[in-house]
C-alpha cells in the first residue's frame, strides 16, 4: 500500500511542477511581445504620454519576475486582474462562462463515456468481422472531421431541415434543467460524436491488446464463452487503459469545446478566449489559457493516478 501512495504522491508532485512551468510559459510568452503590452494595446500611433500612463496603470515599471509572482498569487486566489479593453475584472467575466463550459463538457461526457465503452467492448468482441470494419471506417471519419463540420451538419439536419432542436445554444440563468438540456443538445451531441469515436477505438485497442496474453488463451482453452472471456477475464485488467482513455478524451473535450462553442454561439469560456485573442486582451487570454491548461493537466494526472490505483499488480504486491 505504501508503494502506491508513494507513486501517487510522486505523480501529483510532478503535475504541480508541470502546472507551475506552464504558468511561467503563459505569463512570459506575453513578455515576448515586440515592444510591450502598452504599445501593443495602443498601437504605433500612441503618444509617449498615453503610453506612459498605461504602463503606470499596468505596473510595467516593475521587473517581470515580480509581476509574475503577483499574477500567480492573484490567480491562485481567483483574481486575474482587469481586462485591457473595458477595465472590468477578468474573474467576473470568466466565472459564469466557466460553469457553462463545464456543464457542456459534463453533459457530453455523461452520454459519451458509457456509450463508447460499451461499443468498444462489442467491437472488440466482433473484431475483424464486417461490423468491426464498418465501425472502423465510421469512427475514423468522425475523428478526421473538424468539429465545426460535424456541428454544422447537425445544425443543417436536426435544426434547419427537421427543426427538432434549436441551432443556437442561447442559455440564461432562469432556465430549468430540462430546457437547458434541450438548448445545449446539439453542441453536446457534436462533442459526443468526436469523443465517442476516439474512446471507442482506444477501448477496442486496449482490449484486443490484452486478448493476446497467455491467460486469456488459457481461459479460452478451458472453454469459457467469448463474452465471459472479455467481461470476466480481460476487462478487470483493461480498466487501467480504459480509465486512461476516458481521462485523455475528457482532456480532449476541453479543447474541442472551443470550436463547438463558436459554432453554436454558446456563452462559454472558449468563446471568450477566441474573442479576447482577436482583441488582444492579454489578461483574459492568460487567464483562459491557464484555466484550460490546468484542467488538461489535472485530467491527465487523474488518468495516471487512476491507472496506478487500478493496476492489480500494484494493489496486491507479493
Amino acid at each position: 500500500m505504501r508503494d502506491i501512495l508513494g507513486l501517487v504522491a510522486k505523480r501529483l508532485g510532478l503535475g504541480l511542477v508541470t502546472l507551475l512551468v506552464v504558468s511561467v510559459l503563459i505569463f512570459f510568452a506575453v513578455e515576448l511581445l515586440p515592444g510591450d503590452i502598452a504599445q501593443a494595446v495602443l498601437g504605433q500611433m500612441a503618444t509617449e504620454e498615453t503610453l506612459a500612463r498605461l504602463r503606470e496603470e499596468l505596473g510595467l515599471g516593475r521587473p517581470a519576475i515580480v509581476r509574475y509572482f503577483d499574477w500567480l498569487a492573484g490567480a491562485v486566489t481567483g483574481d486575474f486582474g482587469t481586462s485591457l479593453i473595458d477595465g472590468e475584472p477578468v474573474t467576473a467575466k470568466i466565472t459564469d462562462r466557466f460553469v457553462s463550459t463545464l456543464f457542456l463538457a459534463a453533459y457530453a461526457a455523461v452520454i459519451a463515456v458509457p456509450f463508447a465503452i460499451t461499443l468498444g467492448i462489442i467491437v472488440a468482441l466482433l473484431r475483424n468481422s464486417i461490423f468491426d470494419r464498418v465501425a472502423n471506417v465510421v469512427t475514423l471519419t468522425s475523428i478526421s472531421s473538424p468539429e465545426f463540420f460535424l456541428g454544422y451538419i447537425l445544425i443543417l439536419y436536426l435544426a434547419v431541415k427537421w427543426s427538432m432542436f434549436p441551432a443556437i445554444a442561447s442559455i440564461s440563468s432562469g432556465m430549468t434543467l430540462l430546457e437547458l438540456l434541450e438548448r445545449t443538445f446539439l453542441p453536446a451531441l457534436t462533442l459526443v460524436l468526436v469523443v465517442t469515436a476516439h474512446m471507442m477505438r482506444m477501448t477496442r485497442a486496449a482490449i484486443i491488446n490484452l486478448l493476446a496474453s497467455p491467460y486469456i488463451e488459457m481461459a479460452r482453452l478451458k472453454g469459457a464463452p467469448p463474452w465471459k472471456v472479455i467481461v470476466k477475464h480481460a476487462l478487470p485488467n483493461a480498466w487501467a487503459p480504459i480509465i486512461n482513455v476516458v481521462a485523455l478524451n475528457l482532456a480532449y473535450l476541453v479543447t474541442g469545446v472551443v470550436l463547438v462553442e463558436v459554432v453554436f454561439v454558446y456563452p462559454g469560456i472558449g468563446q471568450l478566449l477566441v474573442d479576447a485573442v482577436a482583441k488582444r486582451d492579454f489578461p483574459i487570454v492568460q487567464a483562459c489559457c491557464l484555466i484550460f491548461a490546468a484542467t488538461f493537466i489535472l485530467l491527465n494526472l487523474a488518468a495516471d493516478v487512476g491507472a496506478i490505483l487500478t493496476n492489480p499488480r500494484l494493489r496486491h504486491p507479493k
Partner: protein
Amino acid sequence: MSMFVIGYYAALIAASCIAAYFQNRQAFMLLFSLTLVSFVLGIVGGVPALQGVTIFAGILALAAGTSYAFREFLIQVSRPAIAKELRTAPLTAAFGMFVIFTYAIAGIFAPWIAPFGQSEVIASAFEPPNEDMLLGADQLGRDMFSRIVYGARNSVGLALLATILAFVIGALAGLYSAVKGGWLDQLSGRVADVIMSVPSLIFALLMLSIFGTYLWVIVVVVAIIYSPRVFRLTRAVAGNVVVMDYVEAAKLRGEGDWHLIRKEILPNSTAPLIAEFGLEFCFVFLLIAGLSFLGLGIQPPTADWGSMVRENATLISFGDITPLIPAAAIALLTVAVNFVVDWMLFRSSGLKEQ
C-alpha cells in the same frame, strides 16, 4: 407501396440470398441486417429515408469501384517491387491514395482548373449556382468553386509546410538526443513534456494573440506545438537502433554524429517515421483548419477552407449545403491520409491482430 420500395426490398433480399448461397457469411450478415434496419428506417422516415440509403450505397459502390481501378492503375505503372506491395493494399488505402492524388492535382494546377481567380468578384453576394458558377457565389460574390480549388493549394500547402518544419525540428532533436544522451537528452525530453501538457489549440491561440496572425507565425507555432510528438517517436525508435552493434562499430571507426544519424540510424527507422508523418499531417491540418475557422488562420482574401466555412455559415440556416463543401474537403483529405497511414502501420509493424 411504390415501385421503388418493392424494388429496394427485392434487391436487398435477393442479394442476401445470393450471399447465403455462396456461403459468404459476412456479406450475408451485412446485407440482411441492412434489410432489417431498412424496415425500421422505412417506417420512421418513409420513402425518402430508403432513397437516402440507396444513394449512400451507390456512392459507396462508386468509391469502391474507383479505388479498385486506381489501385490497378498504380500497380500497372509502378516498378515490380512496389507493385507487389500495392497488391496487398486494402480498398480503403487505395481510396486514400486516389483522394490524395486528386488533391495534389487540384493544388498544383489550381490556376488552370479554377475558372476564376480566388479574389475575383464576379457576381452579387450569395448568388445561386448557374452555368458559369458551379456552386454559386460566396458572401462577396466570388466564385465558390474556384475558391475551393485554390483552397487545396493554400490550406493544404500551409499544413504541409508546418508538418515538414515540425518533422525537421522533432526528428533532428530526437536523433541527436538518442546519439548524444546525457543532459541534452534530458533537457529536450522535459521541454517536450511541457509543450505537450498544454492543449494544442490553446497554445496556438496564446501565441497568435501575441505575435499576430501572420503566415510565418502560424507555421512556426504549429510546428513547435506538434514537434514533441515526432521527437518522442524518433527518440524511441532511434534509441533502439543506437544500441545495435553496427552503430557501435561505426562509433569505434570514429564516425561523427552527423554520419551516425544519416547513414546508420535514419535508414533503419524510416518506416515508422513515414507513417508518423501522415498522422502528424492530419493533426496539423485539423489545427490550422480550426484556427482559420476562428478567423485566426490564413487571412482574406486568400482562399482557405476553414475561413470559407465561417464566412458562408449563414447559408446553412437556409438549408443550403454549399458552406459544408470546404469542411467536407478537409474531412475527406484527413480520412484519406488516415486510411493510407493505417495500411502502412499495419504493413511496417507486421501487427496481425488475432
